């Protein structure tokens, strides 16, 4: 083929047909894109993961939410507990999918593919960002499935709300994947990764208020809740949902009070900013970890 005809041995500079251009931002963007694409291909080929992603929301919303609603009906001011749980279930589903996506780095290491990426003439950051975007996309897709269930728990299909939920889910997914990638940088075994993320993620999830309103908590719990970055992703999700519900002011005050710092009601914009900053810090840490890996 014309492109690969070898030239004479005396001309080493043009020995081969394909001359790979030097790096730069375009090379890094290409790398990010292909790492991202690979995550999507892998997800689409994994039927079990797709089935799981469909079952998970059912479990959270209808089994957990349905079961607890019998206990909680007195305290919800007439609002179906499953409606209250909806944003929390969305957060949980996104969170678990994102951390599972990040786990793929550990598999990649185990099956050697990570090395193929690490020896490429690109910046390590491109791999990390591609991985985080891939995980975020898959997890946001999971979010879309949960959003599709909205009608079954009395949440209206308002276009503005859906868009806002999707955007927030994407941000949360990106943050959690970055967290997972950061953890996976040094971990060589799947069991260790699962143990570590369970140990860290479960408390972060339970503290975040995904399953309960965040006012009137015991002092220590409130403090931990305010320190948990996931709190600031769950709260906007809940605010967006409640903004589109037709419920009493009492119910709103009780179930979606919003996060406050020493009495100051934290605006949604600030919350989103906190999540975005946390995500950036985790990506930066993940990149730093992989530079040394």
């Amino acid at each position: 083929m014309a492109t690969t005809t070898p030239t004479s041995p005396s001309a080493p500079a043009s020995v081969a047909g394909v001359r790979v251009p030097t790096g730069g931002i375009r090379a890094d963007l290409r790398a990010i894109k292909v790492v991202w694409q690979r995550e999507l291909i892998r997800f689409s080929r994994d039927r079990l993961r797709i089935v799981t992603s469909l079952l998970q929301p059912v479990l959270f919303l209808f089994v957990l939410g349905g079961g607890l609603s019998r206990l909680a009906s007195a305290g919800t001011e007439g609002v179906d507990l499953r409606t209250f749980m909806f944003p929390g279930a969305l957060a949980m589903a996104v969170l678990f999918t994102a951390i599972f996506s990040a786990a793929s780095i550990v598999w990649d290491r185990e099956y050697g593919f990570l090395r193929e990426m690490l020896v490429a003439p690109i910046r390590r950051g491109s791999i990390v960002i591609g991985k985080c975007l891939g995980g975020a996309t898959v997890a946001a897709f999971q979010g879309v499935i949960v959003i599709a269930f909205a009608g079954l728990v009395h949440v209206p299909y308002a276009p503005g709300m859906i868009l806002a939920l999707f955007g927030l889910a994407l941000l949360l997914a990106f943050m959690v994947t970055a967290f997972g990638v950061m953890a996976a940088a040094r971990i060589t075994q799947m069991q260790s990764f699962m143990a570590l993320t369970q140990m860290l993620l479960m408390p972060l999830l339970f503290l975040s208020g995904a399953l309960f309103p965040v006012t009137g908590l015991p002092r220590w719990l409130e403090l931990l809740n305010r320190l948990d970055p996931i709190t600031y992703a769950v709260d906007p999700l809940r605010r967006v949902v409640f903004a589109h519900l037709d419920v009493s002011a009492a119910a709103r005050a009780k179930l979606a009070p919003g996060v406050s710092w020493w009495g100051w009601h934290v605006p949604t914009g600030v919350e989103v900013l906190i999540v975005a900053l946390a995500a950036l810090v985790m990506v930066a840490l993940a990149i730093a970890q992989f530079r040394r890996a």
Partner: protein
Amino acid sequence: MTAAVAVEGLVKRFGDVEAVRGIDLDVAAGETFGFLGPNGAGKSTTIGMLCTLVEPSGGSARVAGYDVVHERDEVRRNIGLVFQDPTLDGYLSAEQNLRFHAELYGVPKAVVPDRMREVLDMVGLWERRASRVSTFSGGMKRRLEIARGLLHSPRVLFLDEPTVGLDPQTRSSIWRYIGELKQTEEITIFLTTHYMDEAEHCDRIAIMDQGEVIVVDTPEALKASVGKDRVEIGTDDDAAAIAALRERFGLDAHVSEGMVTFAVASGEAFVPRLFAELGVPIRSVSVARPSLDDVFMSYTGTTIRDAESAQRGDPMVRMMRQGR
């Protein structure tokens, strides 16, 4: 013309263990260069340094004209790597694995389809391009890795034990591909092996043992330097034969696998004298030219297998095996 690989005083220490003890090497462009030695001799560590995966503790190395420490990305862009352990994504098809590589290495989009077809044709996997890699046999995976290593037209292709763990038939087909590769691409091949017979495919060989390069030369010259042929005879009385060999010919013989074995210059010419003068009945005789096994033996004083069993459990080997 710049050397494809130029190494000066390269050293690698892992804690107290000096895995590579100051080696010097020059590999010319277009050469097939073999690193021969037992597991744990420091071959993989050296390749790791040349491929920018392991940071040298001392000395310097240039690959394709670039410094492995200071011009890391340039080196990476100009080398192809085939590791001992597979580094393919089983979830992806052969084609998708190659495409991923092309994107990471920034191969110009316009040439990717042609180049992909060319490398897949070369290793005989074009027909299987759409199959998932998880359905491939070990030999097919290794061939795909070679194709992938060539995709971005590297100037130097590093093959770390390219045939380890493969059956003999697949091994010989891998060597056929490597041979063809030399016809179609202007490329330097740097490989490690601990199979003696494979080292004969190389233009030059470096024998490495315990972190040092013992000797570098062509397989022919190395064999000639040993000088002697290996003669094996079967007798009815081995002890008497060994004694007679020592007394009448001054030769040191020993029993190996049921045969009296010794080394002598010009073995064929020696056989008639042996029959005439030994005085012990001979049932069979065979004469063999020196192999690289003998070469390794004569330079290191040990067989490659013995050297390996002595070094088993070397912590450095395990480190190199782990994914980095």
